[in-house]
């Protein structure tokens, strides 16, 4: 049952622990992953930034170099054409035969495929000859071209590069005119097909898809690997890079490479270089896609590495967090189980660090707990057995008590029945005597029960004092001499001058019981009471010549209602509680009691009492009974809800000389005094009053009402130890109903005397009411 509950409990806690575990686990894992990832990311980004910069610089340089190289090649091409034409102008016109000129022109055409047409002008600017690949040659046309720029410019600057133009609106052409170094060396005018620059341009390879193209000063496309674009006479002056080139950004400024749109509208990384004499520019374009492809690849690679790194970091983080958290989890679960009562739980953590030590400490703690728990269980079990035994004896006690009570009641019933009939005066007296005896027995039984009850409740506090034992011995002698003589026994009390330290009343009670038993159970011979001094102790011994107590019953005689079998004799008045009370009192006073006995010869009870130093006897009032009768002229308030009790007690008290006020509640009582304007001298209250009030409350209300401390005591039919304890706690006597008139009288006198004495003390040294609680009431009243 307990283990099932424990399992449930553990399961519930394990769920809680799992939540916590995942939190801790996530925390550790996240921390680790975050740290590693940050490092990786930072490293990756920095690396990427630097490689990006390096790569861009490299691209810029390489593309720029390509452009310069292309410009050089095209420049060389033009220079080559120029150089070839130069041959035509080296000979002075006058010395150059027309025939030679013609042949040279034809040779030139054959050698330079780019020249489609070549014209030869004389120094005056007249065309003498024109040879062509496409149309018929013209010789001696004499056409006057002296005003044409190709002539004037060539004469002025020795060389003339005409603007690019398009034949039939598609083929790119340029006029190159060259004048000889000599004054009369005529001018050669060549029409150069620029489509042949395509050969140069198309051979320039930039990366995989990069290319070079040439644009003239007006922004028109002159050469492009995609020859269609050239043949379509494309104007590129709107392109950003062409405008930049036209604006003439100085070399090496870094601005020469830029990202722009190419003629087809794709984004390209472009660089250019000027072809100086022509005013043209070579552009080298590389699609950005391709240009940055290695960069992207490297980014992808880095990204992949980073991802792999992150994955590893996560794995490592999870692993480490797990290593960290699993022992903690084991600890947590173990602690939860131990907390849930499973002390057999042991943890196995083999991490070799503080966690392992912690686990071992937990294990040790659990072992300790297990031991203590087992101990506790054993004790509880023992205690339970004791309680059960006590309960059983209580039941037996009650059964016995009710049996013993029934006997005098039965006898009373019979006597009352006899009285109802016709009886003679002598007979009636005899019956009334018997009734008195039965009532006395009942009273005795109740008192004995009350004594046991008081002792069990622990409300009896011994009041120790030093006194001469002779005082008790005398009283024993006076008490029992008559009874012994009646039974034909000899009672001898050996006097002693010893002093003892004990509670005089309780010790007296012990001795009364023991001697009473001895007298009761002894049929012939006698009873001797004497004392022996042994060290610091006094042994008070009670000898009898009774039947003796069998060995096996020597302990039982101290149990309640235990009587030795004694069939031949009327036990008369033996109620079987005497030795039980003796046993309790001796234990309370710490007076060992010894019993020696031999069957048929007699028994000896010995009570061992601490001896005291003898003192001078002073004239002390011997007891409350000797005190002056304080009743005269005093007013007593009696509060009880039972009218019969009020009437009985009121009558009795008035007879004793008290003025009596009876009331059923304290309010009623207060009301009566309010009219009379007098204060009571004593309050006697029932414990249980109507409306749940208690006598204690009633007394206190009245004290408050009169504004002074008034002596009071309680009367109750409730014999429970709690009532006694409550009353004692407040310092009140509690008398149990039925209360004998003598007992009532004794308590009345004592309470009034105590009060008077207390008031005297108060007058003397202002002592407080605390003294009230110090009163040690005699628990037993003499019948």
């Amino acid at each position, binding site marked *: 049952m307990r283990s099932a509950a424990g399992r449930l409990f553990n399961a519930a806690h394990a769920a809680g622990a799992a939540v916590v575990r995942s939190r801790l686990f996530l925390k550790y894992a996240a921390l680790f992953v975050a740290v590693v990832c940050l490092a990786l990311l930072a490293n990756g980004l920095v690396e990427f930034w630097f490689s990006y910069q390096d790569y861009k610089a490299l691209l810029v340089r390489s593309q720029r170099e390509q452009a310069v190289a292309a410009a050089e090649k095209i420049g060389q091409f033009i220079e080559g054409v120029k150089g070839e034409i130069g041959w035509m102008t080296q000979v002075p016109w006058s010395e150059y035969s027309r025939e030679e000129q013609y042949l040279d022109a034809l040779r030139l055409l054959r050698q330079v495929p780019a020249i489609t047409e070549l014209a030869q002008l004389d120094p005056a600017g007249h065309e003498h000859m024109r040879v062509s690949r*496409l149309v018929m*040659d013209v010789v001696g046309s004499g056409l006057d071209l002296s005003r044409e720029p190709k002539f004037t410019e060539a004469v002025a600057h020795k060389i003339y590069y005409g603007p690019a133009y398009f034949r039939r609106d598609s083929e790119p052409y340029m006029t190159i005119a060259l004048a000889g170094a000599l004054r009369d060396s005529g001018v050669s005018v060549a029409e150069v097909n620029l489509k*042949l620059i395509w050969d140069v341009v198309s051979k320039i390879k930039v990366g995989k898809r990069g290319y070079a193209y040439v644009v003239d000063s007006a922004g028109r496309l002159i050469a492009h690997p995609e020859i269609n674009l050239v043949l379509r006479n494309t104007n590129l002056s709107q392109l950003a890079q062409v405008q930049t080139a036209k604006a003439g950004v100085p070399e090496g400024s870094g601005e020469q490479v830029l990202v722009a749109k190419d003629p087809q509208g794709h984004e390209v990384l472009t660089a250019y270089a000027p072809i100086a004499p022509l005013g043209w520019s070579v552009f080298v374009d590389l699609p950005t896609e391709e240009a940055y492809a290695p960069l992207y690849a490297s980014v992808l690679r880095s990204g992949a*590495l980073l991802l792999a790194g992150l994955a590893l970091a996560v794995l490592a983080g999870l692993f480490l967090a797990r290593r960290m958290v699993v022992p903690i989890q084991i600890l947590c679960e173990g602690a939860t189980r131990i907390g849930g009562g499973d002390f057999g739980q042991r943890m196995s953590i083999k991490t070799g660090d503080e966690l392992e030590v912690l686990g071992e400490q937990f294990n040790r703690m659990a072992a300790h707990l297990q031991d203590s728990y087992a101990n506790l269980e054993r004790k509880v079990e023992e205690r339970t057995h004791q309680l059960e035994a006590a309960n059983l004896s209580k039941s037996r006690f009650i059964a016995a008590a009710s049996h013993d009570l029934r006997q005098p009641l039965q006898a009373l019933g019979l006597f009352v029945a006899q009285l109802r009939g016709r009886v003679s005066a002598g007979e009636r007296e005899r019956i009334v005597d018997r009734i008195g005896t039965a009532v006395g027995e009942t009273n005795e039984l109740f008192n004995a029960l009350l004594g046991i009850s008081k002792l069990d409740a622990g409300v009896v506090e011994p009041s120790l004092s030093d006194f001469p034992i002779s005082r008790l011995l005398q009283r024993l002698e006076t008490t029992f001499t008559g009874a012994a003589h009646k039974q034909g026994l000899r009672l001898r009390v050996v006097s002693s001058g010893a002093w003892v330290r004990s509670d005089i009343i309780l010790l007296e009670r012990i001795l009364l019981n023991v001697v009473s038993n001895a007298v009761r159970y002894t049929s012939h011979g006698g009873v001797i009471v004497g004392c022996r001094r042994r060290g610091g102790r006094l042994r008070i011994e009670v000898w009898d010549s009774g039947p003796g107590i069998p060995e096996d019953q020597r302990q039982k005689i101290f149990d309640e209602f235990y009587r030795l079998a004694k069939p031949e004799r009327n036990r008369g008045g033996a109620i079987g509680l005497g030795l039980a009370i003796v046993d309790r009192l001796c234990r309370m006073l710490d007076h060992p009691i010894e019993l020696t006995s031999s069957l048929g010869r007699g028994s000896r009870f010995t009570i061992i009492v601490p001896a005291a130093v003898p003192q001078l006897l002073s004239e002390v009032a011997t007891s409350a009974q000797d005190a002056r009768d304080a009743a005269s002229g005093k007013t007593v308030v009696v509060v009880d809800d039972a009218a019969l009790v009020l009437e009985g007690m009121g009558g009795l008290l008035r007879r004793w000389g008290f003025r009596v006020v009876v009331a059923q509640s304290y309010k009623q009582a207060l009301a009566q005094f309010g009219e009379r304007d007098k204060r009571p001298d004593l309050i006697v209250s029932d414990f249980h009053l109507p409306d749940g009030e208690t006598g204690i409350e009633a007394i206190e209300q009245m004290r408050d009402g009169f504004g002074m401390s008034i002596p009071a005591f309680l009367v109750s039919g409730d014999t429970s130890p709690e009532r006694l304890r409550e009353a004692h706690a407040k310092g009140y006597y509690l008398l149990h109903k039925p209360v004998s008139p003598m007992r009532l009288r004794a308590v009345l006198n004592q309470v009034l005397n105590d009060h008077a004495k207390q008031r005297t003390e108060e007058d003397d040294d202002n002592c407080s009411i605390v003294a009230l609680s110090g009163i040690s009431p005699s628990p037993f009243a003499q019948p």
Partner: protein
Amino acid sequence: MKRRDFVRLLGGATVAWPLVPRAQQPAIPTLGFLHAGSPERNVDLVAAFHQGLSESGYVEGRNIAIEYCWAEDRYDRLSALAAHLVRRKVTLIAATSTGAVLAARQATSTIPIVFNFASDPVELGLVASLSRPGGNITGITFLSGELAPKQLELLHKLVPTASTMALLVNPTNSTLAESVLRDLQMATRRLGLRLHVMLASSERELNQTFAILAQLQPGGLIIGADAFLDGRIGQIAALTVRYLLPAIYQFREFAAAGGLMSYGTIHTDPYREAGIYAGKILVGANPGDLPVQQPTKFKLVINLKTARAFGLEVPRPLLVRADEVIE
């Protein structure tokens, strides 16, 4: 696994990623090839066209199918063949020779046409301009028509004493023939020569023509550009040798086969260019944006053996000018 191996593996994975093969294209396009001649006489030219296509990324049988339509020199069949190709819904028509181009043009105004001929496409109204054709037609012209006066000039240098010249054209290729004739008439007038125009559209007519030429004894013969004639260069060269006719033709093959001289472009070049253009259009270029291309290289080839056999002395300027002299 060592770290380096792991890194290499990752690197490999990264590089390999973009190389996931693309899905195959569902169907391959079909190209219609329309030619006035016959396949057996044009093997080299078809090969040049294939080469051009492959330069643009197309290989027959792999990612392009080609439907060949040969008119076998019967130019009247070209219209029917062009219509057939249109019906077949070919992706593009590559048309060679003026007649074929005109037939294709007549058959469709939507299917892209790549031409490869000797005429001036602007003059014929096929394109708006050479730089921006504008319609569904573009291609290569090798300017044979325009070159005729130049050819006359070069031939005349070799036979400076001649007073008459003859021109051989294919009358069925009427458009080109007319244009050549017009240019040449102007040129002969300039040089003060008379011109005989000879017509031949079949081998029988060809033989008859040379028989007549043998009687006419012109100073020289200019052979006009034409697919029919192009396919019979060897035969014509032999005829000119047989009848001692100094003749000039546009392709080097003529001089190599024993003809006196040739001036013009390289025969296979325009086919290659046409193949490249066809490829570009197949890839997605708009034919209207592709400018008409013209040849840039012209070659003069002189067969000295033939010249000597004809008793002709080659003047120095011609020798200087000649790119190649066959001894």
